[in-house]
């Protein structure tokens, strides 16, 4: 940060407007790239290049209208405060910030890539592309939420894609960091956000729920897939509040070709109450990546939006509804983990399967927002084709899925896992350990629970799957053993 006391040149106010060629704290203004309502964007270069800074730089300069504009000033202050705290590939790299006493600015990495905004005009887009966008944005959101930040202004113009496809979230002017003061909280008496995307709780001034970003992403997916906005483009607070009691037209009522699972996912994001939505971005990403694992509920069958009576009911309940006080961002992410049970229904002993089930049940029970993904690996040959049907012509894949569901039934019954909190996945791979590790990484699993193979000849010969998972996986791994005395 440039300090007012840093040097004799930095205490003087700038003479007049910014022009190309001007130098500000060692950054030369090259060219104005963008002139926005809230800020101007300049391409800048360092007078003295810095080692390791091998990316182009932009300078964001707030546009102060008529001297004092609280929305612009405080929003920019928030961004100046948050950006240095953010890390990873899903945000632009922060470089420097400039003092308000002279010239406020933020210098950051110029993300090489495309904004999602132009694609919105092309909507409806092919389903594959919409799903792919959803996965990438949900992955970026999970990363942001893990850093204790809710974005609160997720929309196509605030999403960019790097050349390698990674989503980058930009513009943190409305964001909220759990561990930093919320400068916006007291500042305004109107809901903050972008009308079409704002979550119901944002309309009610709640600014600390990461599930608000999932609502916005749901709005985006709806729009990209159908070409229409689920809640229109309201311009008044009254218009914004309609989303508290009016259900959107189901996507399949607009385009019957959209699959029920997609409607299930989108309407799951658009639930009015945050606790009825996906509990974390990773859970949403998991469903988008594994459509066959999406549990279809009433949401998938809906053919119309609110009826007159149900709207009246929802309106009535929305009248006095105040959002429950929310836990913090990090708590919400931590409380909604994905637990992955890796189950070898084919080879494990009954006692081990029972022990594994009991361990998984206990772990899921202690995490009210947890989601359980039951995974089994169907081993395929490394070379050549496999016989994937048995002698009766039944698919081995389906058989394994049935065995997996059978294994999990006592858990789902005793914990009443509803709403897609329990999913099943049969992976086909030559190497179980690698398949388990990759599945966990790809889906952001927080905890793998698996059985240990007994001291068998097979284990000596093949090595232990659980050992490999424990050493190579990035998340917590619990290895369950058969109760003592049962041999194995």
């Amino acid at each position, binding site marked *: *940060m440039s*300090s*007012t006391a840093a040097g004799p040149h930095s205490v003087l106010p700038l003479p007049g407007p910014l022009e190309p060629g001007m130098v500000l704290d060692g950054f030369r203004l090259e060219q104005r790239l963008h002139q926005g309502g809230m800020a101007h964007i300049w391409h800048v270069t360092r007078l003295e290049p810095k080692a390791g800074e091998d990316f182009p730089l932009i300078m964001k300069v707030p546009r102060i209208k008529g001297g*004092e504009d*609280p929305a612009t*000033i*405080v929003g920019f*202050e928030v961004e*100046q*405060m948050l950006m*240095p705290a953010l890390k990873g590939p899903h945000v632009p790299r922060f470089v420097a910030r400039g*003092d*308000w*006493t002279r010239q*406020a600015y933020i210098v950051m990495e110029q993300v090489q890539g495309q904004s999602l905004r132009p694609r919105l005009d092309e909507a409806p887009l092919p389903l594959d592309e919409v799903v792919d966008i959803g996965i990438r944005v949900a992955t970026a959101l999970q990363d942001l939420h893990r850093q204790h930040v809710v974005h609160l202004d997720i929309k196509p113009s605030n999403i960019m894609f790097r050349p390698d496809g990674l989503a980058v979230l930009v513009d943190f002017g409305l964001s909220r960091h*759990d*561990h*930093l*003061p*919320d*400068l916006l*909280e*007291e*500042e305004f008496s109107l809901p903050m956000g972008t009308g079409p995307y704002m979550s119901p709780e944002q309309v009610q001034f709640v600014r600390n729920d990461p599930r608000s970003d999932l609502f916005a992403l749901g709005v985006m997916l709806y729009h990209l897939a159908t070409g229409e906005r689920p809640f229109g483009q309201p311009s008044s607070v009254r218009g914004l509040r309609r989303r508290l009691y009016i259900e959107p037209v189901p996507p399949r009522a607009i385009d019957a070709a959209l699959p029920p699972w997609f409607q299930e996912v989108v309407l799951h994001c658009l639930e009015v109450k945050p606790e009825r939505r996906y509990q974390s971005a990773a859970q949403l990403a998991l469903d988008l990546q594994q459509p066959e694992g999406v549990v279809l509920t009433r949401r998938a069958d809906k053919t119309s939006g609110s009826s007159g009576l149900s709207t009246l009911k929802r309106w009535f309940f929305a009248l006095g509804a105040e959002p429950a006080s929310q836990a913090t961002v990090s708590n919400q992410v931590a409380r909604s983990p994905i637990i992955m049970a890796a189950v070898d229904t084919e080879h494990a002993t009954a006692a081990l399967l029972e022990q594994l089930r009991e361990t998984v049940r206990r772990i899921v029970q202690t995490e009210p927002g947890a989601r359980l993904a039951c995974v089994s690996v169907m081993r395929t040959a490394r070379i050549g084709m496999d016989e994937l049907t048995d002698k009766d012509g039944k698919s081995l894949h389906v058989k394994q899925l049935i065995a997996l569901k059978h294994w999990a039934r006592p858990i789902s019954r005793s914990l009443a896992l509803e709403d897609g909190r329990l999913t099943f996945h049969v992976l086909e791979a030559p190497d179980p350990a690698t398949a388990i590790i990759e599945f966990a990484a790809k889906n952001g699993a927080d905890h793998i629970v698996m059985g240990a193979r007994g001291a068998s000849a097979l284990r000596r010969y093949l090595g232990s799957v659980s050992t490999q998972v424990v050493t190579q996986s990035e998340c917590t791994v619990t290895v369950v053993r058969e109760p003592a005395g049962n041999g194995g």
Partner: protein
Amino acid sequence: MKIALISDIHSNAQAFAAVLEHAAQAGVVRHALLGDFVGYGGDPAWVVDKVRELVEQGAVAVMGNHDAAVVQGSSTHMREDARLAVEWTHQRLDAGQLDFLARLPMSVQREDQLFVHANAFDPAGYEYIQGRLEAMRSLHATESRYTFCGHMHEPMLYHLSGTGKAGEFTPAAGVAIPLMPNRQWLAIPGSCGQPRDGNPAACYAIFDRESCELSFQRVAYDVEGAAQSIRAAGLPERLAQRLLQGE
């Protein structure tokens, strides 16, 4: 330059020593001691000597209501536990130590930073900053960009924007918070020697003058030892218990 903000030590030698060591390891070179050095705890002489030593090395120290009461030897408007401790402490300090306390300033201004025990609007009245209203009153009463005060035992951060809106924030320990230069800030580091937020660990904060970042800290210390010292002094058992509970 990193400045340690330490307040409400209340004769707790174990907590004070642990905080000073923690601060030294964090690279702190200056100390701002925000008053209430004595009262409640069992080691007033050690704490006052340590404060005096730090002041000789350039530390800021301001007067707290317990310090003023100990100088007088009694306080009629304090609760019984506090009053007993004040009377006991007065007897335990020698003339030099009492004189040092008596000469403490009510507030100290260093550049854009104001150091005061209770508030900026009436330092000697010792009104508490219990919430946003009092914080606003204090922030309006000074031109300083940063006000550092104690008196309240729970860590808290208040801020006032150019548009006159005040916000409050309960900080998490160990997170660097940039105190953006566009607004005024009032930080209460929390009590070093008698934390009251349910966490017995000692509170203090580090202000980095260059980056303008403030980080609140919690330091585990020998709570049992401090409680034992209160018992050995014959002070009310309740004062020992509240250290163990952090309330």
